[in-house]
Structures are given as C-alpha cells and as structure tokens.
C-alpha cells in the first residue's frame, strides 16, 4: 500500500475533532479534501501517525452572508464556492478566481479551508484571502480567535496556527462601493501550478484618485506576498497607464524576491510578475472607475 499506516477517526462534530486534535498533541493531520495531503502521503513524504477526517462534520460546510460580508465554513468544497450565486454577488473576486484552482475534478473534493490552512505558496486562495482582507476563525479545545489573513501566513507551508488549532471558518468583508478587483495567473497549462499569479483590489475616491490599493502575488515567495511598495506608489495618485506601469515595475523589482525552480527562474518570475501586476491593476482600476484607463504623462 502506498501511504504508511495511520490511525483513522471520522468525528461527526467540531468539538469531537478538536478533542482528538488535542489528544494527539501534534501527531495528527486533519483530512479535509485531501487533494494536497493524500499525494504527499502516497509518496510517503508525509507519514502522519493519525488522520482526523473532517468530511463528516456537517457544521463546517456552509456559505452565508451577514452584515459584514461573506462567511464560508472551512470544509466548503471549492466547487461549491465556484458555483455559489451568493459568492458571485458578495465576493466577485473569489468567484472569478475559483476556476484557476487546479481542475474541476480536484475542486469537487478540495475545500476552501484545506487550501487556506495548507499555505502552499503556489495556491490561489491564500493570496486571495490576503487581497480581500479576509479573517480566519481558528479554534482549539480551549481557545477561539480571529486572525487577519495577512498575519495568518508566516512562512513556507506555515501559518500562525498552533498544532492543536484548526481553521473552522473564513470571513470575507464586503468591498466598499467604488472598488475594483482582478485576478490573473500564468501557468504552462490551465490547472497546473502557476509560475506567477496576482490578485488586485483597488478603491477610488470621488475624484478618481486611488484611495486604497492592494496587490498580492502567489508563487513568487514563501507564501502570499503583498506588494506594499507598489500599492504605496498608487495611493493618492491618478491611476494612469504610466502610474500603473511604475507600480508594476516596483512590485517586480522591489516587493518580491523570487527563487527559481524547474518551472521558472527568478528573472522570468520577475518578468511575469511585472506583466501580471500591470494586467490585474489595470483591470481592477477599470472596474472601479467604470471606464478605460487614461494614458498619463510620459
């Protein structure tokens, strides 16, 4: 058999799952959709002593809306998020980006919480969560806390969660009127891991100047990488094509420090980052302004 032997439990409630997680004291892995965990187990790169299967916990599967925005249970399948009319209306950036995640057969099983907690630097959902200023609801037997997405990611496949903690819900605040958004990525083949991707969220003031800008990359660092210098260059400015190009350039040269792998070297990743940043910032700004971008001074 491919995976090494493990203890298996399939709790029916969140409390039961948290008890088990505490009992195993860090030796257990939570099994959500299994689309990343099971491959590593099949290769025996991961040999957890125990698996706690969350697929039978009904209370973790939900998509709902409250006064602050959208809320998704951690076990909500990516396919359900993709097909949800509520997500499309309340958090259109999330809706727009879902088809970029792997293939439909993987999204049928993969979950929103599983991908967020796995913290793969090439994954779309962590970058989207940071771009959308999402908040993660984290539980243990003794504790419950909300963590901002930008504080949640602390390194390569690493989050701010303790071994006995579990991500149970994610909340996406609604974007204020006058906001625009966009997502794009470059992969050798649709559905493969992207060599570079980015999400942009931009807010314009009544005069058409940039009030808020957030640009978050995937696949160019140890986790989602927020391009703060690029955003700083745009805020307060009129979003002309020239200003966008300058911001994309700053993002690619100053905000990221990509390492190479067999798919793309650091220089190519910077090149892609510049192109993807320019594309998503332009689309987000056009959406916010409701019109095409001005050329700007040269």
């Amino acid at each position, binding site marked *: *058999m491919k995976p090494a032997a*493990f203890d298996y439990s399939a709790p029916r409630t969140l409390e039961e799952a948290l008890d088990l997680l505490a009992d195993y004291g860090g030796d257990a892995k939570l099994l959500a959709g299994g689309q990343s965990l*099971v491959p590593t187990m*099949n290769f025996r790169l991961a040999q957890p002593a125990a698996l706690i299967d969350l697929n039978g916990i009904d209370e973790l599967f939900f998509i709902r809306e409250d006064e602050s925005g959208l809320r998704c249970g951690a076990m909500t399948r990516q396919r359900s998020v993709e097909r949800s009319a509520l997500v499309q209306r309340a958090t259109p950036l999330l809706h727009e980006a879902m088809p970029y995640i*792997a293939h439909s057969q993987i999204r049928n099983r993969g979950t929103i919480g599983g991908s967020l907690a796995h913290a793969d630097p090439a994954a779309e959902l962590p970058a989207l969560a940071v771009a959308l200023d999402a908040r993660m609801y984290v539980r243990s037997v003794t504790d419950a806390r909300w963590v901002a997405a930008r504080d949640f990611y602390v390194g390569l496949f690493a989050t701010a969660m303790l071994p006995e903690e579990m991500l149970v819900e994610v909340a996406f605040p609604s974007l204020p009127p006058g906001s625009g958004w966009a997502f794009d990525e470059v992969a050798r083949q649709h559905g493969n891991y992207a060599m570079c991707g980015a999400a942009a969220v931009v807010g314009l003031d009544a005069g058409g100047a940039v009030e808020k800008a957030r640009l978050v990359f995937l696949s160019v660092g140890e986790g989602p990488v927020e391009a703060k210098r690029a955003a700083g260059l745009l805020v307060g400015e009129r979003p002309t094509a020239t200003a966008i190009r300058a911001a994309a350039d700053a993002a690619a040269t100053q905000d990221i420090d990509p390492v190479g792998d067999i798919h793309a070297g650091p220089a190519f990743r910077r090149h892609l980052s510049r192109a993807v940043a320019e594309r998503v910032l332009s689309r987000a700004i056009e959406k916010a302004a409701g019109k095409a971008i001005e050329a700007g001074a040269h």
Partner: protein
Amino acid sequence: MDRTLDRTITVKVNGREYERSVEPRLLLSDFLRHEIGLTGTHVGCEHGVCGACTVLLDNEAVRSCLLFAVQTNGREVATVEGLDAGPQQLHPIQHGFWEAHGLQCGFCTPGILMSLVPFLEQNPDPTEKEIRDLLSGNICRCTGYQKIVEAVQLGARLIQEKSS
C-alpha cells in the same frame, strides 16, 4: 482502541452493494481494483495529476487515488464498468469515442469517460473551450486531444439524439 485496524465498510459500486473489511490507508483506486476486481479504473500517477483513476462519488468526478476507501462508507461510486448497458450496448459517450477514434492505447480513457458523464449532464451542448477546460484534468499521451474533443462533441450529440 487501535484505529489503524481494519474496519468494515459498505459501499455501492455501479448499483451493487459491497461489504468489505479494509485498512484505513487503502486508497479507493486500489479498493476498486484489488478488493472488488474492477480493473477498468486505471492507476497512473497516483497523486491526482493524470486523471486516469477518475470515478464518480455520489455523481461527482473525483480522483480515486486521493480518497481512502473508508471515506466511501455508505456512499455511491460509479466506475467505467457501469457505463454500458450490456454487451454491444455502449454508453453514447463511449460510442462517440469509438466512432471518432477518441483513444489509442486507452489507458486514460476510463478517467476521461467518467469525467464526461456529469459534465455532459450539466452541460449537454458544450463549446470546444469548455470541453478542453474539462479535459485539462486528464492527461493523454497518445492522441494530441484533437480526436478526443471530436469524440466528446459526437458523444454529446448522441446523448441528445437518444433523449429527443
């Protein structure tokens, strides 16, 4: 209690109920092939990339190499063996593949067919782009995909003709 021990599961495969005792680490793909002898589900990469092992779990296409058999307890699985209605009575999608030469070696075909069943139910008249998007989750190294796309288009037409 030792939780690594075998446990008894009951799972319906192609409409027939099977009760077996399995180790938790047994993958659904290996369960189908070795425990109940349905070798039509092919095992390629065993990490979710190639799509050859795709089956339906409660009518949704999933990778059987990324599921443990214990997770299907009480659920319904459909494999390529359940597609035809009997000898000489191919499913319209299979017929499309036969007529349009949608396969050469056939290794990837079961996974493609199983991906197509729910896809064509939900989208009976797909565009070429939608077909290619769906096929992006299934790797074929023989055909270059052109014949597969044509086979899907023919299969979709045959389903519509059959139901009209």
